[in-house]
Protein backbone atom coordinates (compact mmCIF):
# COMPACT_ATOMS: atom_id res chain seq x y z
CA UNK A 1 0.00 0.00 0.00
CA UNK A 2 2.75 2.38 0.94
CA UNK A 3 4.42 1.63 -2.34
CA UNK A 4 1.65 3.32 -4.34
CA UNK A 5 2.47 6.61 -2.70
CA UNK A 6 6.17 6.30 -3.30
CA UNK A 7 7.36 9.69 -4.42
CA UNK A 8 9.85 8.45 -6.97
CA UNK A 9 7.14 6.48 -8.72
CA UNK A 10 4.96 9.56 -9.02
CA UNK A 11 7.86 11.55 -10.41
CA UNK A 12 8.28 8.83 -13.06
CA UNK A 13 4.59 9.04 -13.95
CA UNK A 14 4.99 12.79 -14.21
CA UNK A 15 7.83 12.58 -16.70
CA UNK A 16 6.14 10.17 -19.05
CA UNK A 17 2.59 11.51 -18.99
CA UNK A 18 3.03 15.26 -18.66
CA UNK A 19 3.33 15.81 -22.41
CA UNK A 20 0.15 13.84 -23.05
CA UNK A 21 -1.60 15.88 -20.35
CA UNK A 22 -0.43 19.11 -21.99
CA UNK A 23 -1.89 18.07 -25.34
CA UNK A 24 -5.23 17.04 -23.78
CA UNK A 25 -5.35 20.33 -21.89
CA UNK A 26 -4.68 22.40 -25.01
CA UNK A 27 -7.32 20.56 -27.07
CA UNK A 28 -9.93 20.89 -24.30
CA UNK A 29 -9.09 24.56 -23.77
CA UNK A 30 -9.29 25.46 -27.48
CA UNK A 31 -12.61 23.66 -27.99
CA UNK A 32 -13.99 24.93 -24.68
CA UNK A 33 -13.00 28.55 -25.25
CA UNK A 34 -14.22 28.69 -28.85
CA UNK A 35 -17.51 27.11 -27.80
CA UNK A 36 -17.95 29.50 -24.90
CA UNK A 37 -16.98 32.61 -26.86
CA UNK A 38 -18.41 32.02 -30.35
CA UNK A 39 -20.58 28.94 -30.59
CA UNK A 40 -22.82 29.27 -27.56
CA UNK A 41 -25.92 31.47 -27.41
CA UNK A 42 -26.36 34.59 -25.28
CA UNK A 43 -28.67 34.22 -22.31
CA UNK A 44 -32.28 35.41 -22.57
CA UNK A 45 -31.86 37.75 -19.58
CA UNK A 46 -28.15 38.34 -18.97
CA UNK A 47 -27.15 38.61 -22.62
CA UNK A 48 -23.44 38.23 -23.33
CA UNK A 49 -22.34 38.41 -19.68
CA UNK A 50 -23.37 34.77 -19.34
CA UNK A 51 -19.99 33.90 -20.90
CA UNK A 52 -18.25 34.86 -17.65
CA UNK A 53 -19.91 31.75 -16.17
CA UNK A 54 -17.70 29.47 -18.28
CA UNK A 55 -14.68 30.62 -16.29
CA UNK A 56 -16.37 31.42 -12.99
CA UNK A 57 -18.18 28.13 -12.33
CA UNK A 58 -15.32 25.69 -13.19
CA UNK A 59 -12.84 27.67 -11.10
CA UNK A 60 -15.25 27.77 -8.14
CA UNK A 61 -15.79 24.02 -8.38
CA UNK A 62 -12.06 23.39 -8.54
CA UNK A 63 -11.37 25.74 -5.62
CA UNK A 64 -13.82 23.71 -3.50
CA UNK A 65 -12.63 20.30 -4.75
CA UNK A 66 -8.96 21.11 -4.25
CA UNK A 67 -9.57 22.30 -0.70
CA UNK A 68 -11.50 19.12 0.12
CA UNK A 69 -8.69 17.03 -1.34
CA UNK A 70 -6.18 19.00 0.74
CA UNK A 71 -8.18 18.34 3.92
CA UNK A 72 -8.34 14.60 3.26
CA UNK A 73 -4.61 14.48 2.49
CA UNK A 74 -3.80 16.42 5.68
CA UNK A 75 -5.91 14.01 7.72
CA UNK A 76 -4.07 11.00 6.31
CA UNK A 77 -0.69 12.59 6.87
CA UNK A 78 -1.52 13.69 10.42
CA UNK A 79 -3.08 10.45 11.65
CA UNK A 80 -1.26 7.77 9.69
CA UNK A 81 1.98 9.74 9.25
CA UNK A 82 2.31 9.19 5.52
CA UNK A 83 4.51 12.23 4.99
CA UNK A 84 4.00 12.21 1.24
CA UNK A 85 0.42 13.39 1.76
CA UNK A 86 1.76 16.59 3.28
CA UNK A 87 3.66 17.18 0.07
CA UNK A 88 0.43 16.49 -1.88
CA UNK A 89 -1.38 19.11 0.19
CA UNK A 90 1.41 21.64 -0.08
CA UNK A 91 1.56 21.24 -3.87
CA UNK A 92 -2.21 21.61 -4.22
CA UNK A 93 -2.60 24.76 -2.12
CA UNK A 94 -1.47 27.50 -4.56
CA UNK A 95 -3.54 25.96 -7.37
CA UNK A 96 -6.72 26.07 -5.32
CA UNK A 97 -5.85 29.54 -4.07
CA UNK A 98 -5.52 30.83 -7.63
CA UNK A 99 -8.85 29.29 -8.64
CA UNK A 100 -10.63 30.77 -5.62
CA UNK A 101 -9.27 34.22 -6.53
CA UNK A 102 -10.37 33.77 -10.16
CA UNK A 103 -13.79 32.75 -8.91
CA UNK A 104 -14.17 35.87 -6.76
CA UNK A 105 -12.91 38.29 -9.42
CA UNK A 106 -14.95 36.87 -12.30
CA UNK A 107 -17.92 36.70 -9.95
CA UNK A 108 -17.76 40.40 -9.15
CA UNK A 109 -17.26 41.23 -12.83
CA UNK A 110 -20.48 39.31 -13.49
CA UNK A 111 -22.24 40.79 -10.46
CA UNK A 112 -21.86 44.41 -11.55
CA UNK A 113 -23.93 44.16 -14.78
CA UNK A 114 -26.32 41.51 -13.43
CA UNK A 115 -27.05 42.42 -9.83
CA UNK A 116 -25.91 46.03 -9.94
CA UNK A 117 -23.07 45.63 -7.44
CA UNK A 118 -19.53 44.25 -7.42
CA UNK A 119 -19.70 42.89 -3.90
CA UNK A 120 -22.31 42.25 -1.25
CA UNK A 121 -22.07 40.40 2.05
CA UNK A 122 -24.45 37.55 1.42
CA UNK A 123 -23.76 34.06 2.76
CA UNK A 124 -22.31 32.61 -0.46
CA UNK A 125 -19.93 35.47 -1.14
CA UNK A 126 -18.80 35.73 2.47
CA UNK A 127 -18.10 32.00 2.83
CA UNK A 128 -16.19 32.06 -0.46
CA UNK A 129 -14.11 34.96 0.89
CA UNK A 130 -13.43 32.82 3.97
CA UNK A 131 -12.12 30.07 1.67
CA UNK A 132 -9.64 32.54 0.13
CA UNK A 133 -8.43 33.45 3.63
CA UNK A 134 -8.12 29.76 4.55
CA UNK A 135 -5.94 29.20 1.49
CA UNK A 136 -3.84 32.24 2.41
CA UNK A 137 -3.41 31.08 6.01
CA UNK A 138 -2.43 27.59 4.86
CA UNK A 139 0.20 28.94 2.48
CA UNK A 140 1.46 31.55 4.95
CA UNK A 141 1.86 29.01 7.76
CA UNK A 142 4.48 27.27 5.60
CA UNK A 143 6.18 30.56 4.87
CA UNK A 144 6.17 32.02 8.37
CA UNK A 145 6.89 28.95 10.52
CA UNK A 146 10.57 28.06 10.25
CA UNK A 147 10.43 24.57 11.80
CA UNK A 148 9.00 22.34 9.06
CA UNK A 149 7.51 19.83 11.51
CA UNK A 150 5.56 22.54 13.34
CA UNK A 151 4.57 24.05 10.03
CA UNK A 152 3.34 20.68 8.85
CA UNK A 153 1.14 20.23 11.93
CA UNK A 154 -0.33 23.73 11.95
CA UNK A 155 -0.99 23.89 8.22
CA UNK A 156 -2.63 20.45 8.33
CA UNK A 157 -4.89 21.58 11.16
CA UNK A 158 -5.86 24.69 9.19
CA UNK A 159 -6.88 22.63 6.18
CA UNK A 160 -8.73 20.02 8.31
CA UNK A 161 -10.77 22.61 10.22
CA UNK A 162 -11.30 24.55 7.03
CA UNK A 163 -13.18 21.58 5.64
CA UNK A 164 -16.21 22.77 7.65
CA UNK A 165 -16.38 25.77 5.32
CA UNK A 166 -16.90 23.60 2.22
CA UNK A 167 -20.49 22.45 2.96
CA UNK A 168 -21.13 26.00 4.19
CA UNK A 169 -20.24 27.35 0.74
CA UNK A 170 -22.10 24.60 -1.10
CA UNK A 171 -25.35 24.87 0.85
CA UNK A 172 -25.24 28.58 1.75
CA UNK A 173 -27.64 29.30 -1.10
CA UNK A 174 -30.16 26.85 0.39
CA UNK A 175 -29.73 27.56 4.11
CA UNK A 176 -29.84 31.36 3.81
CA UNK A 177 -31.56 33.95 1.68
CA UNK A 178 -28.78 34.93 -0.67
CA UNK A 179 -28.42 37.23 -3.63
CA UNK A 180 -26.39 34.52 -5.31
CA UNK A 181 -28.58 32.09 -7.27
CA UNK A 182 -28.84 28.43 -6.21
CA UNK A 183 -26.88 25.74 -8.09
CA UNK A 184 -27.99 25.09 -11.66
CA UNK A 185 -26.29 21.72 -11.93
CA UNK A 186 -27.44 19.18 -9.37
CA UNK A 187 -26.43 15.60 -8.77
CA UNK A 188 -29.86 14.05 -8.99
CA UNK A 189 -32.15 16.52 -10.74
CA UNK A 190 -32.08 17.80 -14.28
CA UNK A 191 -29.82 20.81 -14.64
CA UNK A 192 -31.41 24.19 -15.30
CA UNK A 193 -28.79 25.22 -17.83
CA UNK A 194 -29.64 24.68 -21.48
CA UNK A 195 -27.52 21.98 -23.22
CA UNK A 196 -25.95 24.52 -25.59
CA UNK A 197 -24.50 26.30 -22.53
CA UNK A 198 -23.80 23.18 -20.49
CA UNK A 199 -21.39 21.69 -23.05
CA UNK A 200 -18.83 24.54 -22.99
CA UNK A 201 -19.14 24.68 -19.20
CA UNK A 202 -18.28 21.00 -18.77
CA UNK A 203 -15.47 21.22 -21.35
CA UNK A 204 -13.97 24.22 -19.56
CA UNK A 205 -14.18 22.36 -16.27
CA UNK A 206 -12.20 19.43 -17.66
CA UNK A 207 -9.69 21.82 -19.24
CA UNK A 208 -9.16 23.55 -15.88
CA UNK A 209 -8.97 20.18 -14.11
CA UNK A 210 -6.29 19.02 -16.57
CA UNK A 211 -4.40 22.24 -15.97
CA UNK A 212 -4.60 21.70 -12.19
CA UNK A 213 -3.28 18.17 -12.53
CA UNK A 214 -0.44 19.43 -14.72
CA UNK A 215 0.60 22.15 -12.29
CA UNK A 216 0.17 19.71 -9.40
CA UNK A 217 2.60 17.21 -10.93
CA UNK A 218 5.17 19.92 -11.61
CA UNK A 219 4.78 21.41 -8.13
CA UNK A 220 4.92 17.97 -6.53
CA UNK A 221 8.30 17.37 -8.09
CA UNK A 222 9.58 20.73 -6.85
CA UNK A 223 8.18 20.30 -3.33
CA UNK A 224 9.54 16.80 -2.82
CA UNK A 225 12.91 17.98 -4.09
CA UNK A 226 12.85 20.89 -1.64
CA UNK A 227 12.10 18.53 1.23
CA UNK A 228 14.93 16.26 0.19
CA UNK A 229 17.35 19.19 0.20
CA UNK A 230 16.13 20.24 3.65
CA UNK A 231 16.63 16.75 5.01
CA UNK A 232 20.13 16.48 3.58
CA UNK A 233 21.06 19.81 5.18
CA UNK A 234 20.16 18.39 8.56
Amino acid at each position, binding site marked *: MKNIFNSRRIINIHNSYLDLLKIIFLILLIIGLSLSFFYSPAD*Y*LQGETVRIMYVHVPSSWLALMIFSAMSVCSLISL*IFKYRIFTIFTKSLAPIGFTFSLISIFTGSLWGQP*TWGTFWTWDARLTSMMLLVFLYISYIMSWVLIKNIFTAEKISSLISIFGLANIPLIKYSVIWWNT*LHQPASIKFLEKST*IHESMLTPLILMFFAFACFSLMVFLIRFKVESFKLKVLREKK
Partner: protein
Amino acid sequence: MLINKNKRLMIFLVSLITFLIIFKFLFNTLRSNTIYFFSPSEILKLSKLPEKKIRIGGMVKKNSINEKGDKYEFVLTDFNQEISVTYSGILPNLFVEGQGAVVEGKLVSRKYFIGTKILAKHDENYMPKEVADSLKKINNTKKIK
Protein backbone atom coordinates in the same frame (compact mmCIF):
# COMPACT_ATOMS: atom_id res chain seq x y z
CA MET B 1 3.66 2.52 16.44
CA LEU B 2 0.22 0.91 16.36
CA ILE B 3 -0.66 2.32 19.78
CA ASN B 4 0.32 5.79 18.61
CA LYS B 5 -1.78 5.53 15.51
CA ASN B 6 -4.83 4.44 17.52
CA LYS B 7 -4.21 7.26 19.97
CA ARG B 8 -4.07 9.81 17.19
CA LEU B 9 -7.27 8.39 15.70
CA MET B 10 -8.98 8.68 19.10
CA ILE B 11 -7.80 12.28 19.54
CA PHE B 12 -9.07 13.03 16.09
CA LEU B 13 -12.48 11.45 16.66
CA VAL B 14 -13.00 13.19 20.01
CA SER B 15 -12.00 16.56 18.58
CA LEU B 16 -14.25 15.94 15.57
CA ILE B 17 -17.26 15.35 17.83
CA THR B 18 -16.58 18.46 19.95
CA PHE B 19 -15.97 20.42 16.81
CA LEU B 20 -19.29 19.28 15.31
CA ILE B 21 -21.17 20.27 18.46
CA ILE B 22 -19.54 23.72 18.48
CA PHE B 23 -20.25 24.08 14.80
CA LYS B 24 -23.90 23.20 15.32
CA PHE B 25 -24.34 25.92 17.98
CA LEU B 26 -22.41 28.45 15.95
CA PHE B 27 -24.44 27.64 12.89
CA ASN B 28 -27.77 28.02 14.69
CA THR B 29 -26.88 31.47 16.04
CA LEU B 30 -25.38 32.53 12.73
CA ARG B 31 -28.47 31.45 10.89
CA SER B 32 -30.81 33.62 12.92
CA ASN B 33 -28.47 36.64 13.05
CA THR B 34 -27.15 36.83 9.52
CA ILE B 35 -30.19 37.43 7.43
CA TYR B 36 -29.32 38.91 4.06
CA PHE B 37 -32.87 39.76 3.16
CA PHE B 38 -36.39 39.23 4.49
CA SER B 39 -39.24 37.87 2.41
CA PRO B 40 -42.64 39.61 2.61
CA SER B 41 -43.97 36.73 4.75
CA GLU B 42 -41.07 37.07 7.19
CA ILE B 43 -41.75 40.82 7.46
CA LEU B 44 -45.30 40.02 8.57
CA LYS B 45 -44.00 37.71 11.29
CA LEU B 46 -41.55 40.29 12.78
CA SER B 47 -42.52 41.24 16.34
CA LYS B 48 -41.57 44.91 15.81
CA LEU B 49 -40.52 47.03 12.86
CA PRO B 50 -36.72 47.29 12.53
CA GLU B 51 -35.30 50.81 12.89
CA LYS B 52 -32.21 50.12 10.82
CA LYS B 53 -31.92 49.72 7.10
CA ILE B 54 -32.95 46.24 6.00
CA ARG B 55 -33.23 44.35 2.76
CA ILE B 56 -36.31 42.67 1.45
CA GLY B 57 -36.43 40.26 -1.43
CA GLY B 58 -38.95 38.54 -3.63
CA MET B 59 -40.36 38.35 -7.12
CA VAL B 60 -41.36 41.56 -8.88
CA LYS B 61 -45.08 41.01 -9.41
CA LYS B 62 -46.23 40.97 -13.04
CA ASN B 63 -47.77 44.24 -14.30
CA SER B 64 -46.99 46.00 -11.03
CA ILE B 65 -44.22 48.44 -12.06
CA ASN B 66 -45.52 52.03 -12.17
CA GLU B 67 -43.24 54.73 -13.46
CA LYS B 68 -43.74 58.37 -12.38
CA GLY B 69 -40.83 60.42 -13.64
CA ASP B 70 -37.80 58.88 -11.97
CA LYS B 71 -39.92 57.35 -9.24
CA TYR B 72 -40.86 53.73 -9.44
CA GLU B 73 -43.55 51.83 -7.62
CA PHE B 74 -43.78 48.09 -7.69
CA VAL B 75 -44.91 45.09 -5.66
CA LEU B 76 -42.59 42.40 -4.33
CA THR B 77 -44.19 39.03 -3.71
CA ASP B 78 -43.18 35.61 -2.42
CA PHE B 79 -46.41 34.14 -3.84
CA ASN B 80 -47.87 34.23 -0.35
CA GLN B 81 -47.56 37.79 0.94
CA GLU B 82 -46.91 41.04 -0.88
CA ILE B 83 -45.26 44.34 -0.05
CA SER B 84 -45.34 47.56 -2.08
CA VAL B 85 -42.09 49.39 -2.67
CA THR B 86 -41.25 52.89 -3.87
CA TYR B 87 -37.83 53.67 -5.23
CA SER B 88 -36.21 56.56 -7.09
CA GLY B 89 -32.98 56.10 -8.97
CA ILE B 90 -31.47 53.94 -11.64
CA LEU B 91 -32.79 50.40 -12.07
CA PRO B 92 -30.38 47.56 -12.84
CA ASN B 93 -30.72 46.05 -16.33
CA LEU B 94 -32.04 42.75 -15.05
CA PHE B 95 -34.77 44.33 -12.97
CA VAL B 96 -37.83 43.05 -14.84
CA GLU B 97 -41.27 41.83 -13.92
CA GLY B 98 -41.41 38.16 -13.00
CA GLN B 99 -37.75 38.09 -11.87
CA GLY B 100 -36.33 38.30 -8.38
CA ALA B 101 -35.06 41.50 -6.79
CA VAL B 102 -33.54 42.55 -3.48
CA VAL B 103 -34.29 46.08 -2.23
CA GLU B 104 -32.35 47.86 0.49
CA GLY B 105 -34.12 50.56 2.44
CA LYS B 106 -36.46 51.37 5.28
CA LEU B 107 -39.60 49.60 6.32
CA VAL B 108 -42.39 52.12 6.93
CA SER B 109 -45.12 49.65 7.70
CA ARG B 110 -45.57 45.93 7.18
CA LYS B 111 -46.97 46.57 3.73
CA TYR B 112 -44.92 49.59 2.61
CA PHE B 113 -41.19 49.91 1.98
CA ILE B 114 -39.02 52.80 0.79
CA GLY B 115 -36.08 51.51 -1.20
CA THR B 116 -32.73 53.25 -1.53
CA LYS B 117 -30.88 50.60 -3.53
CA ILE B 118 -32.04 47.83 -5.81
CA LEU B 119 -30.14 44.65 -6.63
CA ALA B 120 -31.52 42.38 -9.33
CA LYS B 121 -31.51 38.71 -8.45
CA HIS B 122 -30.79 36.19 -11.16
CA ASP B 123 -32.29 32.72 -10.86
CA GLU B 124 -30.60 29.42 -11.70
CA ASN B 125 -32.13 29.19 -15.20
CA TYR B 126 -29.78 29.73 -18.12
CA MET B 127 -31.14 29.44 -21.65
CA PRO B 128 -30.85 31.05 -25.07
CA LYS B 129 -33.42 33.64 -26.09
CA GLU B 130 -35.13 31.34 -28.61
CA VAL B 131 -35.74 28.69 -25.95
CA ALA B 132 -37.12 31.27 -23.52
CA ASP B 133 -39.47 32.60 -26.23
CA SER B 134 -40.75 29.15 -27.14
CA LEU B 135 -41.25 28.32 -23.46
CA LYS B 136 -43.31 31.50 -23.12
CA LYS B 137 -45.42 30.51 -26.12
CA ILE B 138 -46.11 27.06 -24.67
CA ASN B 139 -47.12 28.61 -21.36
CA ASN B 140 -49.41 31.12 -23.06
CA THR B 141 -51.21 28.45 -25.12
CA LYS B 142 -51.65 26.41 -21.93
CA LYS B 143 -53.25 29.40 -20.23
CA ILE B 144 -55.64 29.98 -23.15
CA LYS B 145 -56.77 26.36 -23.13
